[in-house]
């Protein structure tokens, strides 16, 4: 029975959340009921995940490993789900009758991701990955008008399919050369076998599937389209929870290979290209979500810096950074959803006058963007400091320099947004945004947390370090 307890968060997500919405999707549409139920259930789900923090155990013939590392990520995923659902209050981008389905798919996707972070057999991992991807393809297609949503979803799917193909090929290579897809076994075999081209190629191609999730070069093309084309809460979910899961899996996979210079070099090149391409392209974007997409791509590049140092410190910093990405990206999308009238997309210029129509949102946006740019004393700075320290410890000093210059570039487009929010006069006087008290509270909490966690990062760092210790 102990084993099933360890599976608690997933079970809850699968049966309670999934079950309820399966039923709801069959009932007549009632957005309010769906939303309230979803919020309540997701909150309980987060509670259960937190309660399950210290669970450990192996399930399903040792293909599924529950440890501190996975549980921490599960908390982040449950949190991501909750926050994404929070944004669905009005959910204007999706037809009301599909709301229940949306919650269902979000739940399924979260479940799949939870399984991803716990999967220690690469085949399990692959299945979970596909499950989450397929949920997202469908979610993206829900965007109204449906023609646009479906077109975006198809593009997303095509690139996702290529990534899957690449990943499957990699898995095949790995299995062919090692005879197993079990992570624990691979971990003993791989470091020694990494000298063989087919092994390292296999591992790299396997990583390709994760690159797709994390929108790393060259799999990053879907991100701008999907962010722009998906409904705002869905885009928020993709930018937050989906990234977190991808980071977790990436850490697990790279950790398999021990410390391999060749792989690190390849990853370094990918990191540099990813962040430079992301940051540079973001400069001219007019659509806020597109800009955030490119910024997400760039963040993926930074994440890779932590991972490619291939040390516990590097993994810990990446774990910490996952939380950073989750919170900051959510903050941006929170503002975006609140500003977006009728669930439409928001151009950067539309933020004009935000400072006077809603000071707290403007403040939240500014803090989130500065934090994304890594300006102290925010959590974003602490995250970058940890990442870069880990990289310098392994001697990747030049990489860090390049990353820092990318940070400067990124500041340019973040400042553009802040400029719009704080300085631009709106073309016509905007009515003050009517924010519910809970919205304001949430914004306040987010701002406080962004700063407070930047000033007092010690507990979070300790947690992240403890988490990666179990990776061995």
């Amino acid at each position, binding site marked *: 029975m102990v084993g099933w307890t360890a599976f608690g968060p997933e079970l809850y997500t699968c049966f309670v959340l999934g079950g309820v919405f399966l039923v709801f999707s069959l009932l007549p549409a009632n957005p309010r009921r769906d939303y309230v139920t979803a919020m309540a259930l997701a909150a309980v789900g987060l509670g259960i995940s937190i309660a399950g923090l210290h669970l450990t155990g192996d399930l399903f013939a040792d293909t599924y490993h529950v440890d501190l590392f996975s549980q921490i990520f599960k908390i982040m995923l449950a949190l991501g789900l909750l926050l994404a659902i929070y944004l669905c209050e009005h959910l204007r981008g999706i037809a009301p009758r599909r709301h229940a389905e949306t919650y269902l798919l979000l739940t399924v996707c979260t479940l799949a991701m939870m399984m991803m972070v716990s999967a220690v057999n690469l085949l399990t991992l692959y299945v979970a990955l596909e499950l989450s991807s397929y949920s997202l393809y469908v979610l993206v297609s829900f965007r109204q008008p449906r023609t646009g949503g479906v077109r975006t979803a198809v593009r997303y799917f095509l690139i996702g399919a290529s990534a899957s193909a690449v990943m499957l090929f990699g898995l095949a290579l790995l299995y062919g050369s090692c005879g197993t897809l079990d992570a624990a076994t691979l971990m003993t075999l791989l470091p020694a076998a990494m000298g063989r081209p087919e092994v390292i190629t296999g591992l790299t191609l396997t990583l390709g599937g994760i690159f797709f999730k994390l929108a790393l070069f060259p799999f990053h093309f879907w991100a701008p389209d999907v962010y722009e084309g998906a409904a705002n809460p869905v885009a928020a979910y993709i930018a937050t929870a989906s990234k977190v899961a991808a980071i977790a899996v990436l850490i697990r996979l790279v950790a398999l290979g021990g410390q391999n210079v060749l792989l690190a070099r390849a990853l370094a090149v990918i990191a540099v290209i990813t962040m430079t391409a992301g940051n540079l392209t973001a400069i001219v974007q007019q659509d806020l979500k597109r800009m955030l997409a490119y910024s997400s791509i760039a963040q993926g590049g930074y994440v890779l810096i932590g991972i490619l140092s291939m040390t516990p410190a590097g993994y810990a910093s990446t774990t910490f950074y996952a939380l950073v990405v989750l919170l900051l990206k959510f903050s941006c999308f929170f503002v975006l959803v609140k500003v977006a009238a009728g669930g439409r997309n928001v151009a950067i210029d539309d933020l004009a006058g935000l400072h006077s129509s809603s000071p707290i949102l403007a403040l939240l946006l500014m803090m989130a963007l*500065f934090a994304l740019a890594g*300006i*102290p*004393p925010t959590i974003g*700075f602490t995250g970058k*400091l*940890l990442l*870069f*320290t880990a990289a*310098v*410890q392994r001697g990747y*000093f030049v990489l*860090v*320099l390049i990353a*820092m*210059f990318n*940070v*400067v570039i990124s*500041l*340019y487009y973040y*400042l553009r947004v*802040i*400029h719009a929010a*704080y*300085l631009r006069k709106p073309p016509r006087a905007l009515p003050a945004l009517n924010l519910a008290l809970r919205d304001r509270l949430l914004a306040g909490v987010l701002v406080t947390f962004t700063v407070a966690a930047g000033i007092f*990062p*010690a507990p979070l*760092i*300790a947690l992240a*370090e403890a988490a990666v210790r179990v990776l061995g």
Partner: protein
Amino acid sequence: MPIAYAGFPFLSAILLSCVIGLVTILFMPAAQHRRIKMVSAVCSGITLVISIYLFLAYDKSAGGLQFAERIAWVPSLGISYFNAADGFSLPMLLLTGIVFFTAVLTMWELETRVKEFFALVFLLVAGVFGLFMAQDLFFLFVWFDVSLFPMYLLIAVWGSTRKEYAAMKLTLYLLAGSALILPGIIYLVVKSGLSTFDMLALMQPGTFTPFQQKLAFLLFFIGFGILAGVWPLHTWSPVGHVAAPTAVSMIHAGVLMKIGAFGILRVGIYLCPLGWQYWAPLMALLATVGIVYGVFVGLAQTDLKYVIGYSSVSHMGIVGLGLSTLTIDGLNGAVFQMFAHGVMTALFFSSVGYIYDRTHTKAIAELGGLSHSMPRAASFMILAALAGIGVPCLASFWAELMVFIAAFKVYPLYGTLAVCALVVSALFMLRVVQRTCYGPPRSRYAQLPDVSFKLGIPRIILATVIITFGFFPSLMYTMIQTASLPLMGGLPW
């Protein structure tokens, strides 16, 4: 280095009063301008009082770091909240207190977005104070950036003349500097093998190889040098000065540029002495070019604030020249110059700001005869200009004297050039004074009010400081000596 821990956390109290000011203002209704200003004045006054107290209470015979406070912050990374003050940081703290308080009083007439303005100023100054007292590299960097990023809004919202361009340029440029500093800091921390950000621990001789010191010092020199206005990385500063509102110009030129020089001193020189020695000739060259170049470009400017902006480039060049001499006198002079220039330029900007507020122009050609309509404002400006020229018995003179003595000894050619630049500097400062204050009275300015007593207070404070340290330079030099002597390992020769 001896450390004396404080019975009462004075240094934190300075930061705390900034934070309290910030938080109080944030929770006040935006419409209560007067109250917000009162809170700002009180909180900044507290910082000034504490910094004066610390300046006087520092035990010069004991030297070393005093008023220290240390709390382990992130033990796993070796980060501690470690503040302390020595003979280099106390003048800077005093300067910050003075400029902060006077800047707040100078902005007494501000009416637009008052709440945000003062909140941002508090944030900025908290960063400045923090940097001057930080003995931990992590916190030093945090404070460094905290003091930079409010600048964007301060300039872009409340500024003038190409404010958005200037704000963007300034922010990106300065943060490009921090993009060099952070890797430098991480590099040193990692290479030390001590996994600590504690500067005292990192400062032990033999911690870093010569190569590491050279590399890191170069990063710090460029990174902090951008902020210090080192030629040719200076172009953000005149543009920024011109665009910024008065108080921000004061803080900016008065204090913020000093952060750059102080960073070179505190991080670069203390941690990488060999790198310092290695790069000193380059520093001296750039500083000298800056001194000469600054005055010549200043000569051609038609905008009052640009003139002061370029004079800042020149004066900060003197700081750089002092630092590059590798001598006690050079260091003493450089630190004193940081202080003296800060006060002088604050007075200058506050006078120009007043003139701009009243006449609505900064163009030298449109001004004239202000000594008639606003004699007090003109007098403050003349005093500032004279201090800028380096007239004896005003604070800058002593600083420049020491730097020139040191520079002439170590780099005779650079020293001579820098001294010769004094002539041109006199030419352009007096040209500005003549074109704005002197000349026949202009009817369109005849009705403008002179500086009132209330607005005069900050200017009187600044003028008093300039004159006091001009007559009693030893007040400052005995303080600075307590830090420069141990740094240089005792007396030379």
